[in-house]
């Protein structure tokens, strides 16, 4: 991010402007990725007219950076009509796609409509690995062809490499592929729960050993010793693990300058933060942004409000995702996936991981067989112990 863009983000924060937004146009997809968090059935997507009205409201509210994502955006037959509308409203437009449906003609139209960048999911440089993740034979070939079409039109392409157990060894290959194609490269080693709360896909997350190797790869992180340095120990003796400035810092831009709207019009702080704040089919975008009680609560949270993280050595340097914390059950709590990353990076366990370890090492309570003579109040007591 450029210094000017960062400065504008800070200005937007001061002004209370939703500077960036992601709009998912559909959850339908022509790939069936093993790690995907979405329900791909269509439960009533917004119509073209509804989306155009929403885009106008977003522009009026001050949204500058608009990301269209999905699902697969090119499955919407009105996609280019929507894109033309967004162009006329002078958004800075970014796309996220698997690019399988992009051929020469689509690439030329994207150039004409001045799309800022196109982020394309690539899991491996090896077809047998990529196609096994997407469950679509030939999908890597199609995506690579599309990248060549886009590059031939002078467009900026970013290869997004989500890492999981299946493809952990292939990121060097994907990075080399990006170089060969003249594309940028970004990597994300986090698999998130499904939007309905199902956490079964978390088993695909790369383990701690793999993450440790990743974080020490100087081709990715630069100076590994610097990147993996333990968090600074605070010298002051005011009983706080972090400075006052850090304790008052914001967790991330979700709900502060950024937001997300689903294909059904649901408004969330972020795509990874499934706390419904309203629906743009019933309310104006700006009214939700300004008046939603849920957003106000998200905006009120500071590091000092997080009982575990505020006491954690990683508190001010952690990449904690409030959305993942919310999905764990508490938006003021830790995000274990980020605790594990901080641990893998520095070797120092977070306060949350230590607490989990401690609770695991406590002597297990013996389950007591309930006998008929025990009264109701005693039953409650046993039930409480059993749930510990």
């Amino acid at each position, binding site marked *: 991010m450029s210094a000017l863009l960062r400065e504008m983000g800070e*200005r937007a924060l001061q002004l209370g402007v939703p500077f960036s937004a992601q709009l998912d146009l559909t959850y339908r997809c022509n790939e069936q990725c093993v790690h995907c968090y979405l329900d791909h059935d269509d439960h009533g997507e917004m119509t073209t007219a509804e989306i155009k009205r929403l885009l106008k409201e977003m522009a009026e509210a001050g949204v500058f950076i608009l990301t269209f994502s999905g699902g697969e955006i090119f499955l919407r037959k009105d996609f280019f009509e929507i894109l033309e509308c967004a162009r006329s409203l002078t958004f800075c437009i970014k796309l996220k796609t698997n690019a399988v449906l992009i051929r020469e003609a689509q690439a030329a139209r994207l150039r004409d409509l001045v799309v800022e960048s196109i982020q394309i999911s690539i899991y491996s440089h090896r077809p047998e690995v990529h196609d096994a993740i997407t469950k679509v034979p030939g999908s890597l070939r199609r995506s690579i062809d599309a990248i060549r079409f886009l590059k031939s039109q002078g467009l900026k392409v970013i290869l997004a490499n989500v890492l999981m157990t299946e493809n952990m060894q292939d990121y060097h290959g994907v990075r080399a592929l990006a170089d060969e194609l003249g594309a940028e490269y970004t990597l994300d080693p986090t698999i998130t729960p499904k939007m309905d709360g199902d956490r079964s896909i978390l088993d695909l997350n790369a383990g701690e050993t793999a993450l440790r190797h990743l974080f020490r790869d100087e081709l990715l992180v630069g100076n590994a010793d610097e990147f993996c340095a333990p968090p600074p120990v605070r010298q002051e003796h005011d009983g706080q693990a972090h400075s006052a400035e850090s304790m008052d810092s914001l967790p991330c831009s979700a709900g502060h300058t950024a937001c997300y709207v689903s294909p059904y019009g649901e408004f969330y702080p972020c795509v990874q933060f499934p706390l419904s704040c309203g629906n743009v089919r019933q309310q104006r975008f700006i009214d939700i942004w300004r008046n939603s009680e849920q957003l106000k609560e998200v905006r009120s949270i500071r590091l000092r409000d997080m009982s575990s993280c505020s006491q954690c050595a990683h508190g001010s340097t952690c990449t904690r995702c409030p959305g993942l914390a919310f999905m764990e059950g508490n938006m003021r709590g830790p995000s274990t996936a980020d605790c594990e990353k901080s641990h893998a990076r520095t070797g120092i366990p977070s306060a949350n991981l230590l607490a989990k370890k401690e609770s695991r090492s406590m002597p297990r309570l013996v389950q007591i067989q309930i006998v008929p003579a025990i009264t109701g109040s005693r039953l409650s007591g046993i039930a409480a112990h059993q749930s510990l």
Partner: protein
Amino acid sequence: MSKKLYIARSPRIAARMLGEEMLVMSGQGSTLFTLNPTATVLWRAADGATPLEEIVGRRICTEFEVQPEEALRDAEALAEDLANHGILLISEEPISGQPTTQEANSKPDAPVQVTR
């Protein structure tokens, strides 16, 4: 420059008012700019149909209390600079069909607030 000039907003930019500043991203290499108040006035008035001289007389001179000749000279230089960055189109003829973009989060009839 002695000929009449016309200016239009490029259809290949992203733009948004952020507080009192106009934020513009050029399609050329995704370069980001903020326009100063004079450039913002010029950019907003760049409809492709109104001669630059008229824009300067109506908007710049009244807003900034400068002499027309000096203002026009500065405006021409500014317009050229913005054109070099792909933000404005300049022509000696009216530029038809421009602008193709809408300035969504500002009121066209509202007085432009500027400070010198």
